[in-house]
């Protein structure tokens, strides 16, 4: 029982950490001498803030929202752990976690679709982009587990 609990919390925290790293470090595309990212564009000569287009701002907003929702769901999990009756399901926690995963998915999709617009040819996607795509199924699975899980004892 305790093992199951620890496993679930570990999964949730892993998804959360991936989300944080993907949003903050922001190496979404890399080239030979440039990295073109969510917040800042860097070349070997210097860094400048990212373009103020509408789509990149929406990607920023969606990633931040997914972090907020995942944190909220962790907090709600601990609340519900102590206040739920026996046999109850962690619906609220699961809902928030699934919403967080949906936000990450939409952010990654928007970035993929729009990247030809603001990224020059020849640049490949960086590790933050891959982390975002990995965080999405992790968060989804974690949310589904919460919805199915029943509280015992």
């Amino acid at each position, binding site marked *: 029982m305790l093992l199951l609990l620890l496993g679930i919390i570990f999964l949730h925290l892993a998804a959360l950490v991936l989300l944080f790293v993907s949003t903050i470090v922001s190496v979404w595309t890399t080239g030979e001498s440039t990295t073109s990212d969510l917040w800042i564009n860097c070349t070997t000569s210097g860094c400048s803030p*990212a373009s*103020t287009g*509408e789509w990149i*701002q*929406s990607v920023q*907003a969606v990633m*931040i*929202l997914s972090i*907020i929702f995942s944190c909220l769901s962790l907090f709600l999990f601990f609340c519900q752990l102590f206040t739920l009756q026996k046999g109850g399901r962690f619906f609220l926690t699961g809902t928030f976690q699934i919403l967080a995963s949906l936000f990450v998915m939409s952010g990654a999709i928007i970035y993929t679709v729009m990247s030809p617009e603001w990224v020059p040819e020849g640049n490949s996607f960086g590790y933050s982009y891959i982390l975002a795509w990995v965080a999405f199924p992790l968060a989804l699975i974690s949310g589904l587990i919460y919805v199915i899980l029943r509280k015992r004892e």
Partner: protein
Amino acid sequence: MLTFLALTSVALLGIVPEQSQAIAIYTGWERHALVGSDIRLSCSFFSWRWTSEDVTFSWTYRPDGSRDSISIFHYTGGAAYVDNKGPFRDRLEFVGNPGRRDGSILLKNLELNDNGTFTCDAKNPPDIVGRPSSVRLLVFEKVPIQAGVITGAIIGVVLGLLVLIVVIYYLMRFLVARRVFSLSVSKHGKKKKEGSQQRQGPVPPADPSKIKV
């Protein structure tokens, strides 16, 4: 006491060596404008000397990407001379007040090619040692969206919806609970009244035969 202070300050001003009396020129740092609009580039200076009659203002312009600057405005001897051959002919106007140390110019009907650096140099004889000050002009076709506005808007809307849903949920629960409570109170009250009436009915009258004497 006050007169003493005034006299000492005047004496100090006179004693201050010539090198520290430099003229300080102030313009903006950067100006943004839309194509077709007018913009006022302000220039003023600070000098320890009184404003002399031979005060001069001159503005020079260096386009973005070019290394040469051309002179576009000069004020001297009480008369203003505006550009009549260069890129700003018929678009430049002097709106400053040299008596108040203001040497501002007005650029009309801006074009995209007007991006560049404008430098103002003022001289207030005998105070002529100073560093000219530059203001950068950026001309846009349409107003650009500032970074972070849309981000903040999306986050705010979603969080606001979340708070709204939570509030509505608790409100519904509260209302439903109150309605259920009031319903159960009225039912309970009715049952109580009926119950008490029933109990008074079947109470048997005292049997006189059973009363012992």
